[in-house]
């Protein structure tokens, strides 16, 4: 087989293209749109397998067939339907899963309906309170009966004897008067103990010890009358009311299940649906609770099971609420009373949100007993515990806020006005004022902002801290707008007070809130002043170190309102403000958020030096945070942000400055590979842009410039670690250099690409998985081959220097075992060589002479090509032979033979007998084992027949006769 003689078929690309053009099919404009449903109605194809000559085309017409995409969007989109369904389903599922109790689920649903989602639920407040009211003082729990709270059993040591002992202890504990006092508890210990009590409550309930459960609840609520370590009281309230909630739920659910025989009660059950046993049980609970000696536990426990009144009579809740409200008057300690009211309001809102009266009643009672706060016994207590009055007053906030929130919820305007008047009557009590501002609707507060400022000013200086008042006002103003004309006065008045706050912590908490207002309504001038003020306050003693979250929030707010970066950076204080973020992680986070906003809102490319400098600074900060320990993901996202910036930089026609920017950027961002890749792309683009501007005629100056661009790419590419980015960038830059008539540069790029080919690893990691690199490499080589057609040979090297170089590399490369890749490269090199031997090339680069002009069809050159082809075919045939030796590789053999056949048919001159004999042999070989797709074979034959009709192709008809089609057997 060695003596294959290659002759390339002469091609007339023009004529072929003409033949391939579809017959013009008239298309009506009105109907046709590329995005309309496409239906191929008619396809006319002619043979022609050259690159660049589209071989098929479709004429299309619109049809009434529904677009599958749009039909998805008309309302009944299954995804959103599913989401909607699951939104309602999920809470139900999780509930029934956690408790298996229908009653609870129903109850919660009901509450939601009555209260609505715009009511901020207690669960939100809960966490806030726990986080805010903390103490380092030692706490104590005083219980008259205990749960197993001796020592937390060490995990794993649940020996039986241990269990028995604790059981016995438990029994002892239940004895009357077994008082237990736990002293010296840290706050965490305290919370743990309470949680233990909660657990033992559930256990007791589960093991049917109802009396014990009640005792636990009573003892817990008794703890609420203890106001030692008063700073912790709000948190204590939260912890203990959790237990009460549990208890209330348990009792309700139990009675509910008693009625669920034979079928569960509906949500809206009436007293008549409740059976006698359930009623009796319920009544028993109420009698038991009514005989609790102490006031506070009696109140709390009755409030906890308030809902159970539904089982007894219709008006039970309605009558109980006012009575409990009145009973709270008996609590002497104002703080304890305020929190009891808060609890009652909470339960009331949950159970009967429509009963507003007792809410109001609670508030008026609260006002009525307000003077208690300054009473002697309270003062003594504060002195004893060394708590300042302002601090003491803030302890009230959660309770009063909650009560007012309940009242203000969907309340009519006049009621709110009335409430405000009442507060005013009490001498503008700051504490109340604060709560009013927090609880009432922001728009209500905002329209009266000036009034509020007046009231705040009138407040007693010694009492409630004013910055908190302004903080609350600011919070309302952040959500609702005060009248236009008053805005500046409001800001001035507020800031006058804020700037006087001494403690940096208080200051920043308040200032942060007001930044929102400033950003919303004022220009950069005011904001600049505000930032300057913040810097002034936060810099001394490095106070900013403790205030990063607030400062970050300030930046976030400013970014939300100032999207125009030229305005943003023209605020003189913005960058100095950023300088306050000195902790690396925070700094990067801030920069990142700025970049995100930049990418989102900077739509026009910019050359504004202010923006560029600032952004470069910010990007550099991000880049500099990358170190050896940075995660891949982190690097990737940082790179994306920086790339986003680079893409937005454009100096217009000032190409040189753009290049020097890229030089600077390369130096700055050298650690982030994706950024470097982007920079190379940018420079390549720059070169092409220059070419476009010069209309392909480079002047001396622009020629030097594009060479500089090429040089930039050439020295940047080697610093990339990813071999495939290097390869593709070499190729691309080579193409760009060629397009710009920089022949030696293009040569260098391509040579460099060829020279690193052996370094391509056999497998690369993609998205964390190891994949074979073969397909990527094949892609690259095919691409590379296509480029080689237009590369003129270097005068100092031999003919087809690059092609040979590439093929040599391919030969030496260690391909995967059992792979035909090498041979497939050889097969795909044949069309290139065939194309090179044409008189006029299929494509060329303007202003660049390709080999066609250099050699002008010199026979020596052609024979050189033919020799090369023969060698390649020889290699392929050898390989086919070796494949034939193995049973398992016959399928591969067939496919390979067929592809070589295709190449011969398209590019070989089959008038040559030997070649046509070879083609026939290959055809037979590919069909030998029956792996060939019959349809493809049939179509191939048809196409050959069609070609044979043309005048210079008549020889093909002979060949066709020799190609036999195997029938499937």
């Amino acid at each position: 087989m060695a003596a294959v003689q290659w002759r390339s078929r002469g091609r007339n690309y023009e004529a072929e293209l003409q033949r391939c053009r579809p017959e013009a099919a008239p298309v009506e404009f009105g109907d046709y749109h590329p995005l309309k449903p496409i239906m191929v109605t008619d396809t006319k194809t002619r043979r022609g397998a050259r690159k660049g000559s589209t071989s098929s085309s479709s004429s299309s017409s619109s049809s009434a067939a529904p677009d599958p995409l749009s039909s998805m969007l008309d309302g009944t989109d299954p995804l959103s339907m599913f989401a909607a369904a699951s939104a309602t389903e999920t809470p139900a599922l999780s509930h029934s899963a956690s408790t298996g109790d229908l009653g609870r689920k129903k109850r919660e649903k009901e509450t939601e309906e009555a209260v609505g989602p715009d009511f901020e639920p207690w669960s939100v407040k809960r966490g806030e309170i726990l986080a805010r009211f903390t103490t380092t003082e030692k706490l104590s729990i005083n219980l008259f009966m205990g749960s197993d709270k001796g020592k937390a059993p060490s995990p794993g040591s649940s020996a039986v004897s241990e269990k028995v002992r604790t059981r016995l202890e438990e029994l002892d504990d239940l004895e009357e008067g077994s008082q237990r006092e736990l002293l010296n508890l840290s706050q965490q210990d305290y919370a743990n103990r309470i949680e233990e009590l909660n657990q033992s409550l559930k256990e007791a309930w589960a093991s049917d010890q109802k009396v014990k459960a009640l005792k636990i609840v009573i003892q817990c609520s008794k703890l609420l009358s203890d106001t030692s370590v008063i700073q912790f009281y709000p948190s204590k309230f939260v912890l203990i009311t959790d237990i009460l909630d549990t208890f209330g739920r348990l009792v309700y659910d139990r009675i509910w299940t008693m009625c669920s025989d034979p079928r569960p009660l509906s949500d809206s059950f009436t007293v008549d649906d409740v059976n006698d046993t359930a009623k009796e049980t319920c009544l028993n609970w109420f009698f038991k609770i009514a005989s609790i000696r102490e006031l506070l536990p009696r109140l709390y426990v009755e409030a906890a099971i308030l809902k159970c009144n539904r089982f007894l009579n219709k008006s039970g809740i309605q009558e109980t609420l006012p009575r409990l409200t009145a009973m709270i008057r008996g609590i002497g300690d104002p703080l304890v009373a305020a929190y009891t009211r808060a609890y009652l309001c909470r339960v009331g809102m949950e159970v009967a949100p429509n009963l507003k009266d007792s809410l109001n009643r609670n508030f008026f009672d609260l006002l009525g007993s307000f003077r208690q706060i300054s009473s002697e016994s309270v003062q003594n207590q504060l002195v004893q515990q060394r708590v300042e009055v302002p601090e003491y007053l803030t302890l009230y906030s959660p309770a009063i806020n909650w009560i007012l929130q309940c009242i203000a919820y969907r309340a009519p305007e006049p009621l709110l006005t009335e409430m405000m008047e009442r507060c005013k009557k009490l001498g503008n009590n700051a504490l109340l004022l604060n709560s009013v501002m927090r609880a009432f609707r922001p728009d209500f507060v905002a329209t009266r902002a000036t009034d509020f400022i007046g009231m705040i000013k009138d407040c007693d200086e010694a009492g409630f801290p004013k910055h908190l008042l302004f903080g609350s006002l600011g919070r309302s103003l952040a959500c609702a707008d005060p009248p236009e004309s008053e805005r500046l006065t409001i800001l001035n008045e507020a800031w006058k007070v804020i700037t006087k706050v001494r403690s940096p912590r208080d200051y920043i908490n308040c200032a942060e809130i007001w930044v929102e207002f400033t950003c919303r309504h004022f220009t950069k001038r005011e904001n600049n002043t505000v930032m300057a003020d913040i810097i002034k306050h936060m810099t001394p003693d490095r106070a900013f170190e403790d205030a990063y979250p607030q400062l970050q929030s300030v930046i976030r707010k400013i970014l939300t309102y100032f999207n125009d970066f030229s305005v943003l950076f023209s605020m003189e204080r913005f960058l100095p403000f950023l300088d306050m973020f000195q902790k690396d992680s925070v700094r990067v986070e801030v920069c990142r958020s700025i970049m995100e906003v930049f990418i989102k809102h900077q739509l026009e490319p910019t050359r504004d030096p202010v923006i560029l400098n600032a952004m470069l600074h910010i990007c550099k900060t991000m880049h500099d945070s990358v170190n050896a320990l940075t995660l891949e993901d982190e690097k990737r996202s940082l790179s994306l942000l920086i790339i986003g910036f680079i893409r937005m930089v454009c100096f217009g026609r000032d190409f040189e400055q753009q290049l020097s920017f890229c030089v600077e950027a390369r130096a700055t961002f050298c650690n982030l590979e994706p950024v470097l890749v982007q920079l190379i792309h940018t420079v390549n683009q720059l070169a092409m842009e220059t070419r476009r501007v010069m209309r392909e005629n480079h002047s001396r100056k622009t020629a030097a410039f594009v060479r500089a661009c090429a040089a930039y790419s050439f020295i940047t590419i080697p610093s990339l670690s990813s071999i495939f980015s290097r390869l593709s960038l070499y190729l691309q830059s080579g193409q760009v250099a060629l397009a710009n008539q920089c022949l030696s540069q293009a040569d260098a790029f391509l040579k460099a690409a060829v020279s690193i080919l052996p370094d391509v690893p056999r497998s690369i990691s993609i998205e964390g998985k190891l994949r074979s690199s073969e397909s990527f490499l094949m892609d690259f080589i095919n691409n590379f081959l296509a480029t080689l057609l237009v590369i003129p040979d270097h005068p100092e090297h031999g003919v087809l220097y690059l092609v040979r170089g590439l093929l040599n590399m391919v030969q030496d490369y260690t391909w995967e075992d059992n792979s035909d890749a090498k041979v497939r490269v050889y097969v795909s090199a044949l069309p290139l060589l065939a194309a090179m031997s044409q008189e006029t090339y299929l494509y060329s680069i303007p202003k660049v002479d390709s080999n066609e002009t250099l050699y002008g069809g010199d026979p020596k050159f052609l024979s050189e090509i033919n020799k090369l082809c023969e060698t390649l075919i020889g290699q392929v045939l050898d390989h086919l032979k070796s494949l034939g030796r193995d049973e398992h590789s016959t399928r591969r053999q067939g496919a390979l033979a067929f592809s070589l056949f295709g190449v011969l048919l398209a590019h070989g001159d089959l008038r040559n007998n030997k070649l046509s004999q070879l083609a026939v042999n290959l055809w037979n070989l590919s069909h030998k084992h029956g792996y060939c797709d019959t349809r493809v074979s049939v179509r191939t034959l048809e196409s050959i027949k069609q070609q044979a009709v043309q005048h210079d192709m008549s020889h093909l008809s002979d060949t066709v006769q020799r190609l036999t089609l195997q029938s499937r057997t």
Partner: protein
Amino acid sequence: MSVTLDIRLKRANKVYHEGETVAGVIVLACKEAMQHHGISLSMEGLVNLQLSSKSVGVFEAFYNSVKPIQLISCNIEVAKAGKIPGGKTEIPFEFPLLTKGNKVLYETYHGVFVNIQYTLRCDMKRSLLAKDLSRNCEFIVHCQPQKAKVVPTPVNFSITPDTLQNIRERSSLPKFLIKGHLDATNCVISQPLTGELVVENSDVPIKSIELQLVRVETCGCAEGYARDATEIQNIQIAEGDVCHGLPIPIYMVFPRLFTCPTLETTNFKVEFEVNVVIVLHDDHLITENFPLKLCRV
């Protein structure tokens, strides 16, 4: 051969009135069939009188007179000797709640020296080898509602150092003024005791204000009697130094079983009182007593 015996009344709250029928079932549960020598059921109403230890000496003379007073008693045979099948057997029963002669069915009351109690008792006789089984079940009798209309008779009170009696040193007493009212001293037993109390002023802070419900039980006959007052329950209505001038509600539910309509018979009396107790921070104890008349409507 375990068997359980239980009495279940039809009414969940077990409350019956005179003239009504006490109905229910005896529930027998055993694994396999079982022999027995007869099951009987009896109903009994008793007043138990007891003398307090401090008066025992004086009244030894008429010791006999404190033997229990029977109010009602009857007995029926539920089943003759025989066999009950395995599983759960329910035998229904009914007792008319009727007295003989001019005896009155007093309301159920659990006190210290006077106890009025109604019970059902079921006995199952068995062979010599097995123990006899018995089961008690208390049911509650409410007396017939009072025909006459209850006049609430509210009472106002005002407590100052001057209104107090039984003081050792009047001079050491701090100044205070506590006003208030009870909505009724003629109370309906099923409704709470209500009223209001205002601390107008007090030199010494108040520690606690409580309502003490007291039973006054008298046992005796013509020869003499013993009268004892004991606490039923103590309900705190104010804790700590309450706000002056703000009315604090007085509210107390009368506990079931431990209270009954005020009762006066030839042999014993059951009366109730409420004390408003004010504890000052220096542990001064100020008590104001109000006799109550309870009734059922």
